[in-house]
């Protein structure tokens, strides 16, 4: 980004959705990945999209999904939004280059 490239969208799926769990408490001397993404997104106006099917399966829900499934609590971190795989396909076709980070 420092070199003038722009990032269209960051799409979290598979195990990647676990980053969006607002209840993560890593030990104090380790990087808090959820907060690191939130900061980066705020500084550079990035869109952080979490695959809704992968998230639900792994117990990451926003207020709306929690209500829909009759759950008392929700835990999607601020700055992240839930959406479908169509957003991933859209990004693939819109961006010049797609770089994937696998687990």
């Amino acid at each position, binding site marked *: 980004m420092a070199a003038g490239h722009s990032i269209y969208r960051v799409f979290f*799926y*598979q195990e990647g959705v676990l980053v969006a769990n607002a209840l993560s408490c890593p030990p104090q001397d380790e990087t808090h990945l959820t907060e690191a993404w939130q900061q980066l997104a705020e500084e550079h106006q990035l869109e952080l999209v979490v*695959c809704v*099917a*992968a998230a639900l*399966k792994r117990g990451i829900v926003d207020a709306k999904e929690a209500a829909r499934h009759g759950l008392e609590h929700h835990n999607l971190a601020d700055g992240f939004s839930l959406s*479908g*795989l*169509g957003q*991933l*396909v*859209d990004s*693939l*076709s819109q961006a010049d280059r*797609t770089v*994937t980070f*696998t687990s």
Partner: protein
Amino acid sequence: MSRPDFDLLVILTQPPLAGTAAKEGLDTALVSATFEQKTALAFLGEGVLQLVKGQQPDQLQLKGIQSMLKALPFYDLQAVYTDALALQQFGLNPDELLLNHQPATAEQLQQLIAKTTNTLVF
């Protein structure tokens, strides 16, 4: 580069019932095809075992991708490749497997990647 053959190639490398990667990969391929992207699917290494017939995942209260694979012909996703070396390694006869697929050598798979805009590995 000349105009690519495919917009997206999805490579499935996981054996049957190994977590959710294969299902998530197949979902991505199907959504891509639905959005009118030219999409290809390849089964690599242990991934070819997804095509073995007669799987009974309900035995483990699990859900495989075989029922989704059987529905593939109804999507616009007819380019399906399999890893010929893996088929040989596992002693699988291509004709005994699910789906209409094309066994491909490593070199043919390399060319497939070279003629595709984006490749995602699951």
